[in-house]
């Protein structure tokens, strides 16, 4: 499949997730229980993207020793929890990662 066709399909699926409920739902079809479980969607999906990129190396095997990404991610998490600031989280992680690879030579 060419990348353009795939982009269009992904655009369609993204649009449909936004449109379907607005188009189909009659007011009270979503009860509080469904709403509560759906509120965990970010916590269920984002770690599945984050963890492998931090804990695995380029070949896909576990890399737990001398891995600057783990320490940088921990620093970013702590800064994030304390500051509640998206930018501070991203940049504290990037800067500590750069310190490890450029200054300390990991």
């Amino acid at each position, binding site marked *: 499949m060419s990348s353009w066709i795939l*982009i269009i399909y992904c655009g369609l699926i993204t649009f449909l997730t*936004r449109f379907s409920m*607005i188009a189909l739902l009659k007011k009270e079809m*979503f009860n509080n229980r469904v709403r509560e479980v759906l509120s965990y969607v970010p916590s269920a999906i984002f770690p599945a993207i984050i*963890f492998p990129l931090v804990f695995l190396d380029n070949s896909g095997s576990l890399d737990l020793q001398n891995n600057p990404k783990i320490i940088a991610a921990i620093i970013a998490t702590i800064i994030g929890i304390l500051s509640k600031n998206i930018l501070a989280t991203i940049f504290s992680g990037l800067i500590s*990662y750069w310190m490890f*690879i450029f200054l300390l030579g990991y």
Partner: protein
Amino acid sequence: MNNKFKIFLKGITDVSPLMIPVVPFGIIFGVLAIELGFNTYTTMGMSIIIFGGASQIIFLQLFSAGASSLVILSSVGAVNSRHLLYGAVLSEHLSDLKLTWKIIISYFLVDQAFAVSNNYLKKSKDINKYFHLFGAGATCWTIWQITTFLGIILGSVLPEKLGLTFAIPLTFLALLVNDFRRLINLIVIIISGSIATLGYQIIPFKAYVIVAALVSLFAAFILTEFKSMKNE
């Protein structure tokens, strides 16, 4: 100044502070796309056609890892499933709109626009209140396109050695950081992350994102069920 335009402007001003983190996010997306081998047209095409930060980054990540089209599509769908909730929450305010407006509003329904307009829609009784969501969404759209383009320009100058792909997990981490404070969220996060990491090589077709998400969402279902039983 007519009423619709006033509400539209209110949407723009309300969403503006939330645009600050979107700027680096858009630039990071543009930079990554170029680094992973996409050209200017396909990169802009993603931002215009998909118009969803998390989905576009997943797309890049899985596409460059050689995942199949079906896996990319279902992962994008899984990441977007939170929009079902947004739509469900907003539908009571939008159910009287014409189909054309429902389509326009849906295209612009991103996290930031939802966050500010949901509050406005709950309070306002104005018949044209949906213009708030239109204003907020259009603002996000404009910022997203401009920053994608800036990223494309930067991406062709920045050296690969900077390891900017590490910005992907950091961006998602930043979106998740508030959830680390709550116990159930923390458990769900650990389950999802562990399944994805350990299953990365075992789960076929790079489907680790969806498998981890579904299993941990099921865990969230069980845990919240347990919690509500305890409270009764």
